């Protein structure tokens, strides 16, 4: 069954570039890149139970890692292979420090991290400063270069298929079991001999690697990057997509990203019609993200994919499967001590 779905997914995504026109192809490529990042976020939020609001920083690191060598005449493939590795290394270093934080502290720290990394990048001459890097060559291996959006679409969605396969295998493996234990209860996992911090750092690095890979493709696809290309709003949009699709599910990232992108795209088309006020696209975009995010969190906290699956199960009268949502707060531990000692 899973294999069938996988093959179907591959056939559909690989044949779509043949029928889409150039504008749509560009949206399709960006959507694929978002799926890559969201897969990582879903893994991080669903299994390590951590919210990262700074994922665009790793996207940016990947983009710069891919672009800088290419601009200096290195073969593009070197940059693209290095992009996920450098992003993962950066995440591992930062994560060793930051992942001692949890919950909202981590969310704020990752947000802060992104702001710091981007404004530092804007000051470094080697990275083109605030203006950014222009004239990034087309991606290519040997004598083959990709110069059409269609070819980038194939590259992107091949990467998506690879990352999805990798993620599914990781979750099913022995470390994946440890991760699932971690998501259930950190203390129980630690008591069973799971090195908690190391596993969290690994997942963090893995999610950064996916973001870095996406950023690398992005740099070659657009041919131009600047610190301003990687905004906080992007980081949040990815979280919206991950939450919408369902955290820690196999197809959640794909469903969430595609659905959210399509909704925003439809609204964008509507609001750029003649007669609409000039601020309409921005306003509708923000409003769509807000409503989708709040609606899903309040009424389908597990996300769309688990919600649909449980509906089907209910019809077949099989019991619901357990859902994975944004983790329940552990009870505030200071409370007991504070209650007994008067201030």
């Amino acid at each position, binding site marked *: 069954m899973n294999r069938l779905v996988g093959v179907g997914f591959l056939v559909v995504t690989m044949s779509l570039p043949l029928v889409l026109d150039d504008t749509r192809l560009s949206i399709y490529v960006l959507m694929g890149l978002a799926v890559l990042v969201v897969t990582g976020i879903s893994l991080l939020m669903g299994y390590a139970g951590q919210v990262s609001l700074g994922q665009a920083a790793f996207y940016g690191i990947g983009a710069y890692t891919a672009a800088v060598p290419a601009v200096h005449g290195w073969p593009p493939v070197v940059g693209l292979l290095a992009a996920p590795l450098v992003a993962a290394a950066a995440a591992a270093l930062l994560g060793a420090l930051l992942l*001692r934080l*949890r919950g*909202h502290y981590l969310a*704020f720290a990752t947000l802060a991290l992104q702001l710091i990394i981007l404004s530092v990048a804007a000051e470094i001459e080697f990275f083109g400063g605030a203006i950014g890097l222009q004239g990034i060559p087309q991606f290519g291996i040997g004598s083959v270069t990709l110069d059409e959006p269609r070819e980038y679409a194939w590259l992107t969605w091949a990467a998506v298929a690879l990352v999805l396969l990798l993620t599914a295998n990781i979750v099913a493996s022995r470390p994946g079991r440890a991760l699932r234990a971690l998501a259930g209860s950190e203390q129980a996992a630690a008591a069973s001999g799971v090195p908690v911090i190391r596993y969290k750092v690994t997942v963090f690095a893995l999610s950064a690697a996916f973001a870095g890979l996406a950023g690398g493709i992005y740099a070659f696809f657009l041919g131009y990057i600047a610190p301003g290309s990687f905004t906080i709003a992007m980081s949040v949009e990815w979280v919206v997509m991950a939450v919408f699709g369902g955290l820690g599910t196999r197809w959640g990232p794909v469903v969430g990203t595609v659905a959210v992108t399509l909704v925003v795209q439809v609204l964008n088309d509507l609001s750029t019609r003649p007669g609409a006020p000039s601020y309409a696209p921005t306003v509708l975009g*923000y409003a769509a993200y807000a409503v989708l995010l*709040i609606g899903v969190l309040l009424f389908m906290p597990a996300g769309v994919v688990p919600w649909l699956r449980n509906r089907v199960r209910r019809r077949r009268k099989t019991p619901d499967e357990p859902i994975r949502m944004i983790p329940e707060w552990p009870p*505030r531990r*200071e409370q007991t001590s*504070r*209650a007994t000692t008067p201030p």
Partner: protein
Amino acid sequence: MSELLGYLVAGAALGCTIALLASGFVVVHRVTGVVNFAQGMFPVVAGLAAGSLLSAHWPHGIAELGGIALAGAVGLVVGVVAIGKPGTPPLASLVITFGLGFLGYAIEIIVWGDQPRGFDGLSGVVTLGDVRIQHQWLLVMVVTAGTFAALGAFFGRTYLGKGLTACAANPYAARLAGIDVRRMGLYAFALAGVLGGIAGVLLTPLQSIAFDRDVALAVNGFAAAVLGGLDRPGTALAGGLLLGIGQTLFAGYVDGSFQTEVALGFMVLVMVVRAVRQPQAVAV
């Protein structure tokens, strides 16, 4: 020397506005356990609304109060959405407040446009020795001092304030004593809106405000609040002053373009050090 004093005074004024924002974070987090990312929205709404009222020829004072009242109402709405539905885990509430920030963007752009706006505050300058002090800075400090004093009296002496403190100390016991914990949470959100609104109307004459200033404002406020572990308004005041003066000194003597990043780096450092030293405190 006078240069240094000037920086200190300007920094203290900036720090006071940060402290007001920080106290908003603290009030909500103490009572509900939620970190309210929409905190940066309140000063923006209050500042923009006060500006509109002033240009509609409302007198100074009344217009600012109108802005603050609107911010309080917005705070209440944020609270209803974020914690109104029973059983919403705090981390989900956090992400919801982020979504509300986006919704705020949409509404603010429709109402006020996307360009920065400002209005005139107190004009005039006092000269003490060689130090020139804007009247607006003094106003900021006086109002902040008054607000924190009122906050202390509210939590310590009024029935409602004690109820809020009870929810902060032990929600379960508070419920047993007949306190409606969820309603107290909503009051906390409204109070945070008012505090953010005060910061907004004080800040707008000093630096004009646009809809997307909220991230920078929220980050600064959170950085100050973290110093007190997000639970103590007094430490938040100290944190705000420290951050404001530190940023102004850094901008004056080193580099003006890195102020916010310095605040952020400081915040991350404080959080990590706390987490390493006492894993339980930041472990939630």
